[in-house]
């Protein structure tokens, strides 16, 4: 198994404020990589730089052994990005939203129709394909958001807090689908504030603070960094120990 994605000295500065500081990250093929961090740690900026939404001040992103900025056209179809915002149009029907976003990757005609149905079925919305997205509940919108990002069959999925503001059933459904995608061969990068989610699905976790990775490892390995008896501590306690209890968004 090789590296799917590598960041080399990835840095982002806004004026003189360093948001991401010389980040060197390697995501291995087939893993579900969890990225944790308090508000303002630089997680979303990192995701945005990986996806090409934000240009790094310094450093590179290497995707499948190639410089992502230079080979963007060739590699873009292999990347699926699920933003934390519900990036869908309320005045379009579910299938129209899926059509709009899946077609951006050059899929057309009968193949496009097949992919739309396949994606909507995957997130359990096929029966609602002719309903307007504005009539959907929060959980359904989240699922539609995912359907729109996976229809082009990417092999690296980036989930940026995909379970914010939804009920436990919908959350459970989404987590199951992430595991299923991973079993089907997709590598996943997952950011969340919900420690139990990250602990449940991620094979490797990185804790980020002040633009830097301060710890990396499996859930067990991270716990061992703090105490010997891992059964006596939760991932949240590890996180608070490593990043401190001070509020970050005052």
């Amino acid at each position, binding site marked *: 198994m090789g590296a799917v994605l590598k960041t080399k000295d990835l840095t982002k500065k806004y004026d003189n404020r360093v948001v991401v500081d010389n980040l060197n990250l390697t995501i291995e093929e087939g893993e579900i990589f969890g990225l944790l961090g308090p508000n303002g740690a630089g997680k979303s900026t990192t995701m945005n730089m990986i*996806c090409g939404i934000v240009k*790094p001040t310094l450093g590179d992103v290497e995707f499948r052994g190639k410089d992502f900025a230079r080979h963007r056209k060739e590699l*873009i179809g292999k990347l699926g990005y699920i933003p934390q915002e519900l*990036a869908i149009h309320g*005045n379009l029907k579910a299938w*129209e939203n899926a059509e709009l976003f899946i*077609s*951006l990757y050059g*899929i057309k005609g009968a193949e496009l129709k097949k992919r739309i149905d396949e994606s909507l079925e995957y997130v359990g919305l096929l029966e609602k394909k002719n309903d307007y997205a504005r009539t959907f509940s929060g959980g359904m919108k989240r699922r539609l958001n995912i359907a729109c990002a996976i229809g082009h069959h990417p092999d690296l999925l980036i989930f940026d807090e995909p379970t914010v503001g939804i009920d436990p059933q919908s959350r459970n459904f989404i987590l199951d689908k992430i595991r299923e995608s991973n079993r089907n061969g997709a590598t996943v990068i997952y950011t969340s504030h919900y420690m139990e989610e990250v602990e449940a699905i991620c094979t490797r976790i990185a804790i980020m603070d002040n633009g830097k990775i301060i710890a990396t490892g499996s859930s067990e390995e991270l716990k061992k960094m703090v105490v010997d008896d891992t059964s006596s501590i939760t991932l949240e306690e590890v996180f608070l120990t490593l990043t401190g209890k001070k509020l970050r968004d005052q």
Partner: protein
Amino acid sequence: MIRYLIKNNFKLMMRSATNILLYIVTPVILVALLSSAFGDMMEKYESGDHIKAAYSFEAEETDVKAAMLVEGVKEAAKEGDFVLSEYPGADPEKTVRDEEMAGFIVFKKDGGYTVYENGERKYEAKALEYLISSVDKRIARYMIPGTGEREGSDADITVAHPAYMEPINAVDYYGIVEVVYFGWCAVVCGAGIFTAEKKYHIGKKLKVSGLSETKLFLARFVPMLLVVSISSLITAAITAICFGVHWGELLLSALIVVLSAAAATALGLMFYNITQNAVVTIIAVFAMVWIAGFWGGSFETYMFSAHPRILKEISPIYHINRALTELSCMGRSEYVGSAAVFCLGIMLVCSCIAVTAGQIRRRIGE
């Protein structure tokens, strides 16, 4: 494949009640209101009363151009509703006042002329001025510049049917200019998409997909143009059926309306790509369009407005309004060419700036 993006953006715009209200309902209401409000004024110009005017010669002998101008104006006056009488040696200002005339023309020896207008008969005076300037322009084409001599044979010089303004009624005038004016507010039909893309971070997903700025521009430009053109044509059809608005040369008029919508769409997108703010864009575009419409005859008819000619000429809406209204009442217009050039020029320049602004923004990496 931007055709799916274009298709879905088009659906989004067509499903917006605001767009239907702005591009169909409001113009229809305004046509009814304005044509009714200005009907009396335009009837006066149309035919009702004859417009009385006088003329005299500054010198006994005149040059070729002056003679042709007098002849042309007389011919044109006969065909219109002007009663033009010679008042040799009369005081123009006194005559105009005492005889309640629209104006008094003093033809000069060198082919020039002075029009004394009656301030109390502003609209009639403007019509008189318009008639003379139209004949003058027509004659000037046949003259060899700087010589005062005629170019070509006598047969080439005809003043029998000078292109002065035929009467147009208020319904036709406002039925046409309001469709043009609202078409220039094209940016509003894209505002819903801009806002949704920003609010729900859809722009992020579009960027992730690697969509180029040119494609992104086209994905907005094409549906906006389609929506504004279709709405304008629906409005034109409704006003033609309900109020009897005449559009003259239908195909040519439709082409000018579409070109006008294309220019307006590109202008709106240019502002949006620069500011990235729908509200600022709408305010800026509306202000520009209002000024261009004010000078170009969208509110007060351009025939009667007292704006300096240069201001009218720099307003693209003036050229479009004039081309369309003349096509309606005369079946031809010398302004078709300039209207098309204005529209194509604005469309090309604004499109290039819009795409470049997007590319710069992307390069900076916002």
